[in-house]
Structures are given as structure tokens and as C-alpha cells.
């Protein structure tokens, strides 16, 4: 829990918050991933979530999308308490996710992956409607501008970037109005990455979809995000509109943290050495 010195106040709620996260904590055995996370997502905005490796960004997303359960804390969706019972449940309420590991099945075809858990079936006998899924997959990929020549090959045969494009297209082409994207550009070439960012820009212009995106590349952050949140030590250490911050400031915070940690380590080391030398005398 947060020590008394740094009590964290939840961000003041605005009427157009689609999602609010309050005092979320999550531990994995001895590892505390999230200590006291408070964050909010406005309607139609793109929020960039930054933080070091292992700072708990993915964990936070998995809690919001119903894949994991927080230890404590609450969430609110459109002002109502939000306790997703499963990924399906969160999806039914309009939240969909691109996972960092992409959640693709190598053995399944491109279009079966595209519609995983949202398969189109015929009526009255629920047999897979492969023709329809193939067609809609082609359309979704064309919309983004990603070229994947054959949709019936297993995704194991595709490149890393193509796989990522499928994962992103799958989430974005669904019905969700809150998109959680965990490093959606990690494996993308410059051109394809640009296409995804353009797609997000287009969604933003429509104003219906809110996006929370984990990114490591500051250039992408400043190109796309309206606001940034920095996750550090299990809390949101910075929450600013992108226009009011800069690469320098973000760098400074991260480096400052690193410096503090190093100094603490050096001090500890020195203290230990002093203790050792005094005891040996």
C-alpha cells in the first residue's frame, strides 16, 4: 500500500470518462505489480501508457479486459461499477484487447484467427461460415492497408509484422468502443506501423472509440496520443496531456528514477561496507 507521505488522489472524475480505475492493486506472490493505480480514459481520446519493462502495464490492461482480477480497487465503466467476470464479459461491454503476445493460434488460418471467439456461423445449423469470415477478413485488412496474400494459410507461416497486423485488425474491426492495445507496433515495419497509427487517428476523428495504448517509442506517443500516463513503482507517476510534456521531460522522469535507484543501491552498499569494516575492527 502507498506510504503516508505519498497519498495518491484519484483523478477528478469528468463526466465524459468512459473508464475509471481506482486504487487497483495486484501482486503475483512476492512481486507487487500494481501498488495503487488510478487512471481514467475520456471518450474519444488516445491515452498512451508508458513505463519500464516489468512496471505492470500489461497487468493493468489484463485487469481491465477481464483476463485477470485485481486484488483490490474498483473500476467504473461509463460511471457504473465495472467488474468483468471474463474476457467475454468485458468484450460484451465494449472492451477489446490486443495482447502483447498477440493471442494468435499458429495452427489456425488467418481468418480463423481474425474471428477467434467471434466466429461467424450459419443458421440454423451452426457450421462455420468460412466464406463470410474470409471476405470480412480481407476487407478489414484492406481497410488498414496491410497486404496478406493468402488468408487460408496457418498464421505460423506469416512474418512477425503480419501477425501483429492481424491481431490489431482483429480488435479494431470488432464492435468495441474501448480498445486496449499492448505495444501494437512492436514488430511492425515503418510503413505498416504508420498505417496502424493512421488507423487509430481515423478512429479518433470519429470520436466514438477510446484507446489506451502501451508504447515504448516516444515518437509514436507524440504522434498519436492525446495524453500520457507513466506507470512507475506500481502507481501512475505522471498524467499529462501530450501537448504539455516533452520527450525531455519523460526521459528525465525515467532517468531520474533510475538515478535514484542507483544512488539508493550505492548508499546501501556503502552502509553495508561501513558496517562490515566497523565490525571487523
Amino acid at each position, binding site marked *: 500500500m502507498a506510504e503516508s507521505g505519498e497519498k495518491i488522489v484519484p483523478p477528478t472524475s469528468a463526466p465524459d470518462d468512459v473508464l475509471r480505475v481506482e486504487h487497483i492493486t495486484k501482486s503475483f506472490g512476492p512481486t507487487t505489480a500494481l501498488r495503487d493505480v488510478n487512471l481514467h480514459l475520456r471518450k474519444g481520446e488516445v491515452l498512451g501508457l508508458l513505463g519500464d519493462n516489468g512496471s505492470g502495464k500489461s497487468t493493468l490492461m489484463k485487469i481491465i479486459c477481464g*483476463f485477470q482480477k485485481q486484488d483490490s480497487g474498483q473500476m467504473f465503466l461509463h460511471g457504473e461499477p465495472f467488474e468483468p467476470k*471474463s*474476457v467475454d464479459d468485458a468484450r460484451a461491454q465494449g472492451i477489446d484487447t490486443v495482447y502483447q*503476445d498477440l493471442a494468435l*493460434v499458429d*495452427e*489456425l488460418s488467418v481468418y480463423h484467427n481474425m474471428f*477467434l471467439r467471434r466466429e461467424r456461423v450459419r443458421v440454423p445449423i451452426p457450421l*462455420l461460415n468460412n466464406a463470410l469470415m474470409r471476405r470480412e477478413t480481407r476487407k478489414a485488412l484492406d481497410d488498414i492497408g496491410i497486404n496478406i496474400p493468402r488468408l487460408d494459410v496457418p498464421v505460423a507461416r506469416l512474418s512477425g509484422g503480419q501477425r501483429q497486423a492481424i491481431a490489431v485488425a482483429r480488435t479494431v474491426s470488432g464492435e468495441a468502443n474501448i480498445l486496449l492495445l499492448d505495444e501494437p507496433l512492436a514488430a511492425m515495419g515503418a510503413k505498416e506501423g504508420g498505417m496502424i497509427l493512421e488507423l487509430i487517428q481515423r478512429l479518433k476523428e470519429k470520436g466514438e472509440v477510446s484507446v489506451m495504448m502501451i508504447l515504448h517509442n516516444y515518437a509514436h506517443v507524440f504522434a498519436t496520443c492525446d495524453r500520457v500516463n507513466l506507470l512507475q513503482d506500481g502507481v501512475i507517476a505522471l498524467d499529462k496531456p501530450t501537448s504539455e510534456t516533452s520527450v525531455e521531460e519523460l526521459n528525465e522522469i525515467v532517468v531520474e528514477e533510475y538515478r535514484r535507484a542507483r544512488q539508493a543501491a550505492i548508499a546501501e552498499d556503502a552502509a553495508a561496507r561501513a558496517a562490515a569494516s566497523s565490525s571487523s575492527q
Partner: protein
Amino acid sequence: MAVASGSEVPAQSPPEGPASTGRALGGGALKLIRSFLTLREGSIIVVAIVTTAYFSTNATNFATLSNFKTLLPYFAPLAILGAGEVFVMINGEIDLSIGAVYLLSPFVFYKLNQAGIPLVPAVILSLIVSSLVGVINGFFVAVIGISSFVTTLGMLFTLDGLTLIISHTAPVATPGTSALHVNSFAQVFGGGTYSELIWALVIVVGLQLVLTATRWGVYTVAVGGNRLGSAEAGIRVRLVLIRNFVLCATCAGLVGILEAVRAVTATPDPSGSNDILFQGIASAVIGGTLLRGGSGTVVGALIGALFLGVLHDGLIIKGVSANYLDLYLGLAILIAMSVNVYVQRVRTGSGLG
């Protein structure tokens, strides 16, 4: 699953050999062979045909209707067992208790009938008991988290023991059957000459359809291929696993009853049922289903069973001494599987499939 459609494969020069061979075969025939080999079952079909052709020309009386009839009870039960096992194996699990369920279910059927329950309802109830074994297997694997190898091994011994207890280690006459006359109940449930074959074909075709053309099939492949990713996508992994253990155990229970009706008696012989277990798994594996999960076919299991049946029957007709039978069978499986793997490698190596 994901069998590539017959769409055009970019023309490639043959990997080796005189180009004239390819031309002599003709474009159409070549294309046919290629699209055939893109089938996952393609290679085992080739192996099965070659084996059948060998015995047809080298063993008198092999290619006859009466021999086909003696072959049937050998391979039809294996095809059904293999079909159920394929679903569990695509999930990346294994069910070692199918032999024990096969052993138990006719005794459950017998006891229920003795208790006054009519034949067909007693069959249905025995299948429900078998499916409960699947529920228990699935529960231990998917919920408790014990490996399926250990879980179903435990179940194997438990059910073998249970069968010995309830049968008092004595064979019983299968209800509704008589050695003198095959009535209509027996006709349907394994006693008729083609009864088991029809059951096998219906089940194999039905389950292949489930595997390739329904959500159940997609989720089965997904859970076997990427369990974490499947869960992240929202697939209820535990449910998929339990469902497939239930399917597998129910198939085994049905085979137990069909065989007991065909043989007119049920014998509590665990070593015989262990043989059945291994042959059922062998059918699935020979048919192209991977032990590591994510891939497999039900039709392949049928052909795998057919291959085992042809081999067994052919060796007997050739007059191979009983002592040598298992040895030859084992070696033949190894050789056939090597050819199978080689053909598959050629197929994927040349960009087919």
C-alpha cells in the same frame, strides 16, 4: 484443420530427377497428386494403399469379401476409439483410460439390465456413466491441473479395479444377445456384420465435421495450439478440455458395448483392454495426429486403424506365427511412420500444403 484449399500453388521446378518425368505424368495428374499430398492424411493413405496392394498380390484370399468381413471387427472399434482420442490429442493431452472405459462399460450395461432397465435405456445410461469418467478426467486435468498422462493412468487402474470388483472376475453373457440368433437389438449395437463399420463411419464423418466446421473444432485446435492465447481471446479453455475428455470416454464406452454385443459375452480382461488402448492411440498417431497437440484429423485415425487392421490380418493370412505377429506389427508401424514422416517432409519442403 486448415487443410489448404485447392487454390493454385505457384509452379515450381521439380526438386530433382529428369524433368521429362514430370512432363510425362501430365499437368493434370501432377496437380492431382500434389493436391492429394496436401491433405494431412495423404501420406498415411499412400502407406495404407501400398500395404493393401502388397497383401492383395502376395497373400491368397486377402482381397476377398469374406476376408474384409473378418477385418471389420478389428479396425472399426479402433477407428471409433481413435476418433475420440484425436480430440484429446489435438488439445495437447492424452487419454490412457479409454481401454479401461471400454472394459467397464459392458459390465455397467449388464448390471443396469439386471436391475430391470430395458436394453436401449441401459445402453444410454452406460454411455452416460462413461461420459462421467470423461468429466472426472477433464476436471482433474483442467481444474486441478494434474497432467492428463497421470490423471488418466490413475483412472485406468481405478476402472480396471472397479471392473474386476463388480464382475467378480467372471465373464457375463451380454444382455440382449444370444449365440444362436442375432436379434434386432444386437443387429444395431455391434452384432450385425456391418454394424460396427456403420457406427465407425458415422462417428468418423460426424466428428470430422465437428473438427473442421464448428466452433468446437476451432477451439479444440486453438487450445492445443496456444492455450494462453486461447484464454486471452476469451475461449473457455477448461470447458473445451472437459468436453473433449467426455467425447473420448463416451466413444470408448460405446466401443465396449459394441464389442461385448458382437462377442456375445463381456470378459473382464484388463490386459486385453490395454492392448485396445494402445492400438486406439496408435491409430490416431499413425493417422497424422500430433502428440504435442494443435493438429490432427479424425479421418486419419480411421485410416490409421484400417492400416493396423490390414497389417494384422495380412500377416495372419501370410501364415506368420503368432509369436512373431507383434514383432512384425511393431516393425511395420515404425517403417510406415518413417515413410509417413518422409512424405510429409517432402510435401512441406516443396512448399505444398
